[in-house]
């Protein structure tokens, strides 16, 4: 049983670390602001869930697990909101995505 929990937590931690790393590479290499935001925000939430779940399995039933659940809850609540607010501010300020279809081409189709 302990070995199963250990293996599971090891798998979760590795996947979480991989996800975080992919997010970092994506934020650096993506061509446009909105694609970078997409890379950063999706992997943020994913990485947070995986890593914190992995640590929670190691902590067992203790006060530390409750604090980790609180951290996870706050991260899941605030990180997508910040990304949304940033994207909406960028859009309202006039930054256009790279993959946008120009208006006249859309009307003619």
């Amino acid at each position, binding site marked *: 049983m302990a070995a199963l929990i250990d293996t599971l937590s090891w798998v979760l931690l590795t996947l979480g670390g991989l996800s975080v790393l992919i997010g970092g590479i994506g934020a650096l290499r993506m061509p446009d602001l909105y694609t970078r935001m997409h890379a950063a925000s999706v992997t943020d939430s994913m990485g947070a869930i995986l890593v914190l779940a992995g640590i929670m399995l190691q902590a067992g039933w203790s006060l530390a697990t409750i604090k980790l659940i609180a951290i996870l809850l*706050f991260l899941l*609540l*605030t990180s997508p*909101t910040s990304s*949304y*607010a940033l994207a*909406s501010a960028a859009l309202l300020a006039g930054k256009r995505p790279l993959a946008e279809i120009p208006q006249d081409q859309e009307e003619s189709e």
Partner: protein
Amino acid sequence: MIVIFGIFLLTLLVITAIGIVRTDNLFVAVMLMGIASLLIAANFFLLDAADVALTEAAVGAGISTVLFLSALALTSERERAKSSNRILSFIVVAAAALIIIYATFDKPRFGDPEAPVQTHVAPWYLEKTPEYIDIPNVVTAVLGSFRGYDTLGEVFVVFTAGIGVLFLLGGGKAAGVIPQDKINEGLRHHLIPRVVGRVLIPFILLFGLYVQFHGEYGPGGGFQAGAIIAASVILFALLEGEQRALSVLPERALLGLIACGPLLYGGVGLAGIVLGGNFLDYSVLSSDPVKGQQLGILLIEAGVGISVTGVLLAIFHAFAARGR
């Protein structure tokens, strides 16, 4: 291995510092300073200094960024052309840096068990804290009781900073070009941040109170709690507009908070004299000296928290009022 992590973080810090100095767009500099603050906080954490890391994260990365942005809103975003006479400043800075580096040659190695601080200072505090004060967090014991006089000085420094800013900025209003109702609405029309923020504010306040009273058992204390509680009220001001934040916590209440913090701290000190001991001697506050020490630390941490909250909020409102 931890040392390698620390060195990596410090290298990132050096890169960030070079970036801050080299850019001339002040907004970029403010963002990079937020990152620098986080790097320092992570480094403190690696060195096992949790109280300092918490204070640095709360004050440096949260409140400082907000205050810098409020100041930046009042001025232009580009740095002005650099003044002449850079050779002299370079020589002065280089000389000071070389002297400081030379002074560090005499320090003991990092983690050396024979260093004076490990053989004389630390064991004394670790022995005497359970005997005199009996709280688990030795840092709070040192801060609150053994070196309580220094902390009194720190509270008065915070108080002086608040008064200084209020003298410079409070009262007069800059000529406002923006219609009053539009600037004061905050982020009210952005529905999602507003809803999420309103859900979070009570929890941030609760967490601030937890940090305040938990300071005797874990990382925490008055300074951190004051910063977190001020951050929650600043969040409310950002979301709902500064006017509503002022109606919740009016300026007179803020002035009262600024004054009551040091008053409480000094009052506890004077109570020590009145009850027969020395200034800031908490043992006389209760029949059992150890309980008296714990009560004293609780009261002065409350004084510190009140003072820091009041000062940070007063500074924030002083900046925001100029932009109206």
